[in-house]
């Protein structure tokens, strides 16, 4: 498998090199020759009116050829990049995550990134091109061209089409993400300053903890889990990085959504909306386990849960769990 991938990468790299060579060497040479002849030939002739019309024609033909070389260069490079990208689509810094919707959001991210790379590099190349080739050489005034309606219309219409395409794809992914499928597990998540309370309705299980106690929300894998998100005091944000998802916990509002995790594991998460003094440390974990493990966990919690919950609620008032290093400051009281 590894060798296959390596050979694929090697082949595509060679392909890219070949393509780049094909694209750059020949037109570059041609182009520089043209520029030279252009400079020496036409500047001298410019004042002779008799030959002006014929040289203008020649100039226009040469210009057109030069333009075609540039167009080929500009178009071919992204195609080469795409060919390379076809083998292994880069992550562009994001991660696929462990839920079904996190993966579709990740693919959307990849698509956006490829588009961004193409359009961004087109613009960068154009700017660099004009910086290199159109820098001031003397005291001459260039042609004072101001409008080119077909060109201007092109860069109105093409971006609109791109944007509509991006929006359409966004809608497909978004509809999956906000869909309300049948769920087998419901968890009530309540955020407060500065911790989390996870209640399993009908199971007599409550998990509560604040700041670095890092409370754990346990959920089964490969099942639709319904979350009811609320807040007791200020606005918090339920942000699970490995689920590629965040949702604000608003006081007075019940926010509902569904997860379907496809991998087991423990995922460090935290509040992401500024909520006061200990916002930086408002941690929680999401633990995805198999169905049997989930049931064992529920049972163990149901026995001990109530007592533990009340003990921690008492702690909450004294807030003794906050790390001492970060409490030595003014304004903590």
């Amino acid at each position: 498998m590894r060798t296959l991938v390596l050979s694929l990468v090697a082949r595509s790299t060679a392909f890219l090199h070949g393509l780049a060579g094909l694209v750059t060497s020949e037109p570059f040479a041609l182009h520089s020759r043209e520029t030279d002849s252009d400079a020496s030939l036409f500047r001298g002739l410019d004042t002779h009116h008799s030959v002006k019309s014929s040289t203008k024609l020649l100039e226009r033909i040469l210009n057109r050829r030069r333009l075609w070389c540039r167009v080929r260069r500009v178009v071919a490079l992204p195609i080469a990049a795409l060919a390379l990208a076809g083998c292994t689509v880069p992550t562009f810094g994001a991660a696929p995550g462990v839920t079904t919707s996190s993966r579709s959001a990740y693919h959307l991210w990849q698509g956006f990134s490829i588009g961004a790379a193409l359009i961004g590099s087109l613009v960068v190349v154009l700017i660099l091109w004009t910086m290199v080739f159109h820098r001031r050489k003397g005291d001459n005034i260039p042609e004072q061209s101001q409008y080119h309606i077909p060109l201007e219309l092109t860069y109105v219409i093409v971006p609109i089409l791109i944007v509509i395409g991006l929006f359409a794809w966004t809608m497909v992914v978004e509809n999956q993400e906000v869909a309300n499928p049948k769920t087998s597990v419901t968890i009530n998540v309540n955020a407060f300053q500065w911790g989390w309370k996870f209640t399993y309705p009908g199971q007599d299980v409550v998990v509560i903890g604040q700041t670095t106690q890092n409370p754990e929300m346990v959920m089964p894998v490969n099942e639709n889990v319904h979350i009811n998100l609320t807040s007791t005091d200020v606005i918090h944000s339920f942000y699970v990085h490995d689920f590629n998802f965040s949702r604000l916990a608003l006081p007075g509002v019940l926010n509902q959504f569904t997860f379907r995790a496809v991998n087991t594991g423990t995922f460090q998460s935290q509040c992401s909306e500024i909520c006061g003094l200990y916002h930086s440390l408002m941690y929680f974990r999401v633990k995805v386990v198999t169905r049997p493990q989930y049931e064992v966990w529920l049972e163990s919690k149901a026995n001990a849960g109530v007592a533990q919950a009340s003990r921690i609620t008492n702690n909450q008032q004294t807030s003794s769990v906050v790390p001492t290093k970060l409490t030595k400051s003014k304004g903590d009281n």
Partner: protein
Amino acid sequence: MTDVLDPPILAQPGDHGHAHEGPTGILKWLTTTDHKIIGLSYTVTSVIMMVIGGALAEIIRAQLTSSNNSLVSLAQYNELFTMHGSVMIYLFAGPFAFGGLANILVPIQIGAPDMAFPRLNALSYWLYLMGSITMLMGFFTAGGAANFGWVAYAPLSNSINTPGAGADLWIAGLLLTGFSAIFTGVNLTATIFYLRAPGMTMFRMPIFTWNMLVTAILILLAFPVLTAGLIMLYCDRHFGTHIFSVQGGGVPVLWQHIFWFWGHPEVYILALPFFGMVTEIIPVFSRKPVFGYKGMVFATMTIGALSLGVWAHHMFTTGVVLLPFFSIMSFLIAVPTGIKFFNWIGTMWRGEIWFSTAMLMAIGFLFTFLVGGITGIYLASPPIDFFTHDTYFVVAHFHSIVMALVLGAMGGLYYWGPKITGYLLNETIGKMQFWFLFIGIQVFTFPMYLLGLRGMPRRVAAYPLHPSWQTLNELSTVGAVMIGVSTVLFMVNIGYSWKKYPAGDNPWDGHTLEWFTTSPPPHHNFYRLPRIRSERPTWDYNHPDRPAKAHGHHDNQDEVPVV
């Protein structure tokens, strides 16, 4: 060529000195209603605010260099990022653009003697100064400055969660600067509509003036909403109303709607003036007219119109807004911005580009804004916003945007500074400043994009469970220090070049009316005006044989130019 008449002289250099004899020295600065002096006060004050906001940023970046740093406490950290954002957005970027440069330039660019309401203009400045001082005074109160983030989300900003006087001073300061912005908006709109010189039709106005007109209208539409919201917030805090509190039947999300209904147009209120500055700099240093002038104007108007309908893209993760509508509106705003980009490139294309410091800053703006703009398109997509919202990805995105604006601002200062003061700045130090600033910005923002994608939330003072984020944070701090060095270089340059290099009236072969008058301009701006027959009256006067050409028309020396 002979068609261009020498403009009649309207006044002699000596005339105004006698007619407008007024106080000198400090009294002149305190009592003036001259838009140039008010504008200069605005510019200097806002640059001081930039330095203060920058110093706060350096402390923030220093705190984040290790995962559990104790340079500042959690409480102090919350004050720092709140005041950093507030100072930069409320007290620097906006006032610098529409109070500073626009105040000085718009009347001159349209051939007017002053703003339409000079005393209102003075009131704007004094409100702004008092508002700034009020907001910063929060640091000297017992509970410290405001600490709920520059967006002040209710109910965190109510009197239970943020009881201190710092928050009240923040609200009061913001109200004052808000009124100053509204008055400037009134003034700019009236000036542009009513005080244009003969011949200066709307479609002959420089792009900077056009952008300021759209900005002023946006100010008039958006800022009163913020003012109303702040009064509601103040009533909730002190007069027992329950507009944003659940307990009394209020709705906390209402604050977000009000805030962002101002806040998103505010993004364009900040950006459009700097777009305008760049659109003035690029054609002059390319020796070409603005490519697609009318397209540029319509793009600006489209941005202004769309910006009023995209506010809820800041609220995608609240779960209580209609996602598709705000998503498509946010996507669409990329189109006019893209048009502007291609017009800027079209202006440079086949030009004769002179890489002065101002032009370098403008090109740096293009690259940096490109990054910020493209990452903005990602955030218009709710599924992507769900995992990047409130992370460092968003922080990086809007810092790419605002740092691009800083590049534009610096470009504006290098470009128009000689007109305002009469003296050029040193180009060598200027170029050093540019490279520190430009490279610093990229080193500063790129690690933050990656940090956001790895899950680092914004507004955290420590990340003890994620020591692996440390390296990227250190790198970002290096970038922030480079930006700091660039600011120091700017100050050094001002000191070094002080009255050293006389600029003359038209050092850059400019296009617009401000380059026709003296540097600095006289009391009522002009001794004489050229004929205004295009959006480049000064260029037409200096180069009567090189008017702008539409597509398909080539230069022909024999033809008599139509002036």
